[in-house]
């Protein structure tokens, strides 16, 4: 096993490596499972009902876990992704069916009704949600996972017998630590996601809310949660453990809330990924409690997935994870932007000017940002692309990793508008092409094209990788007005360059006018 991981693996090689990992995994684990399930697996739930302990049950959960791995693996390319999603559904079906088959069910009707209610709600939401609302939907879903983890943890606490957690007549200390952690992580995920949802959907201001001494409060609360978990593990009897677990749950809800309120709107991609990660760790902690392989594998997958996404987002903003978590970025928007700014001349253009220049170009690179999502301009943008391509113009899309409010947000919107994914490029793949581009067309993006990130050491976004739009022959910048600055609260030199023409209007309206002028 060691030799498998000691060799360094690039993402491209990972595919080859993966299969061997699978093989090694299955080869070494299947006998281990068979052994432990027969001799070592003492689940009182089964023992109590007189049911024989079945190694196939553990195998079924393992298969379900492997299917979840395949579900994520499928996402390595759009062509395999749909098969991957089906693997995920199959894995879930196996896990649920196995659980139902191997447990004595007091009332199957109640369970069926619960699944039907939840399933119907979920399905309707999934069908109706607008693609631009995807970030808040994901945040809302995270909160449900978190709350479900809290509920399961509490249910396990109240009825440890059903979960096979009894050692003698009380819950084992290790199980209690796992249970406490599961409840705590679940509760943090829940309240944190609720705040993220409120901020993303505009129900709450996106600007950071900074409490005095918030770091002291947060660290103190976290320490209190750890101490309570330890006390909970050592205490015995309902009278002693009950107040501890209640305090633990409440504090965890509070800390989730406190952790997210100081984080500003622009940092939401990191927050959403981080909460994604937490929901995974919550599932893993519950998996430890129940000794369930499917839950542990899934938890580990989701946990690392969210962690990697957070890392990618932080890297794309050149900020450390800790500084994002500490919050407060973009808090001084109005103050910082207002004083340093001198009135510099800029050129303003009309849709007709833009249409004329775009038609003449050989190569156009479009840079979409959150503004495009807000204005719902992706469909109009696709029409413009089609018209330009008919006229022989080469059009490409350039997407910054932190464009929008969640990882991959822009890609989904462009896909929704039927833009071919072959035309959509990541930052490092397209940045060298700006020098050959006739037109850089910026729509709803700002900080990701700000050259201050390369030149101005005092700028809050210094070091963040940005698009080299200043190398393009002509820049069009669609922006609602000259007044606003980006989320980082810094002025953008691109506005005032000789080759820049500002198109001051709503993004959708402007693109529609350009389309009309092109026709």
């Amino acid at each position, binding site marked *: 096993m060691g030799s498998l991981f000691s060799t360094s693996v690039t993402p491209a090689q990972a595919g080859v490596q993966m299969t061997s990992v699978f093989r090694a995994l299955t080869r070494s684990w299947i006998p281990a499972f068979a052994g432990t399930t027969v001799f070592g697996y003492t689940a009182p739930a089964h023992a109590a009902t007189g049911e024989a302990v079945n190694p196939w049950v553990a195998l079924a959960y393992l298969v379900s876990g492997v299917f979840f791995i395949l579900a994520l693996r499928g996402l390595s390319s759009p062509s395999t992704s749909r098969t991957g999603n089906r693997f*995920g559904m199959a894995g879930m079906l196996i896990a649920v069916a196995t659980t139902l088959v191997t447990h004595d069910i007091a009332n199957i009707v109640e369970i069926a009704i619960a699944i039907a209610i939840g399933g119907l709600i979920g399905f309707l939401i999934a069908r109706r949600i607008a693609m631009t609302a995807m970030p808040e939907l994901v945040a809302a879903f995270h909160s449900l996972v978190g709350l479900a983890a809290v509920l399961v943890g509490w249910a396990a606490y109240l009825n440890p017998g059903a979960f096979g957690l009894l050692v003698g007549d009380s819950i084992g200390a290790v199980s209690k630590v796992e249970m406490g952690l599961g409840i705590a992580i679940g509760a943090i995920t829940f309240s944190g996601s609720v705040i993220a949802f409120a901020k993303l959907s505009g129900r709450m201001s996106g600007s950071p809310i900074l409490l005095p001494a918030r770091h002291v409060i947060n660290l103190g609360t976290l320490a209190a949660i750890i101490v309570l978990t330890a006390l909970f593990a050592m205490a015995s009897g309902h009278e002693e453990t009950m107040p501890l677990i209640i305090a633990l749950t409440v504090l965890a809800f509070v800390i989730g809330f406190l952790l997210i309120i100081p984080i500003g709107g622009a940092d939401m991609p990191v927050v959403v990924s981080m909460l994604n990660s937490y929901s995974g760790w919550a599932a893993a902690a519950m998996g430890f409690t129940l000794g369930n392989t499917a839950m542990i594998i899934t938890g580990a997958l989701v946990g690392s997935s969210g962690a990697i996404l957070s890392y990618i987002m932080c890297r794309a903003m050149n900020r450390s994870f800790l500084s994002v978590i500490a919050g407060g970025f973009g808090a001084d928007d109005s103050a910082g932007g207002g004083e340093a700014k001198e009135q510099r001349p800029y050129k303003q253009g009309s849709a007709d000017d833009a249409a004329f220049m775009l038609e003449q170009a050989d190569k156009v690179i479009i840079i979409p940002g959150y503004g495009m999502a807000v204005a719902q301009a992706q469909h109009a943008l696709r029409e413009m692309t089609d018209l330009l391509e008919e006229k022989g113009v080469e059009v490409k899309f350039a997407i910054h990793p932190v464009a929008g409010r969640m990882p991959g947000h822009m890609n989904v919107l462009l896909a929704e508008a039927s833009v071919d994914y072959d035309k959509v490029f990541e930052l490092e793949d397209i940045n060298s092409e700006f020098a050959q581009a006739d037109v850089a067309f910026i729509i709803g993006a700002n900080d990701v094209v700000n050259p201050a990130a390369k030149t101005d050491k005092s700028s809050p976004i210094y070091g963040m990788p940005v698009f080299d739009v200043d190398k393009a022959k002509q820049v069009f910048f669609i922006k609602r007005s000259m007044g606003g600055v980006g989320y980082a609260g810094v002025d953008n030199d691109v506005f005032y360059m000789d080759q820049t023409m500002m198109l001051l209007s709503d993004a959708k309206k402007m693109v529609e006018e350009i389309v009309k002028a092109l026709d």
Partner: protein
Amino acid sequence: MDFISILSIFVLACFVGYYVVWSVTPALHTPLMAVTNAISSVIIVGALIAAAAADVPGAKWLGLLGIVLASVNIFGGFAVTARMLAMYKKKEKK
């Protein structure tokens, strides 16, 4: 299962997750979040166990509520992922 076997599975799964997720194309990061969301609702297994046992009513009702929440996520998560992925189809050239 003893703690060490469970821990081994967990650690290995973290490594698997690490390599698998790095191989996910950035264009599909939003579907990745939606599908990880759906699969983390495998926590429904715990809710089902709680709801199946009749002896402690409090635990049973928490379990049933857990099933409802997890089901929203499972059906919603997979359906919305499928909807997104359907949009990534390659367009035929006219």
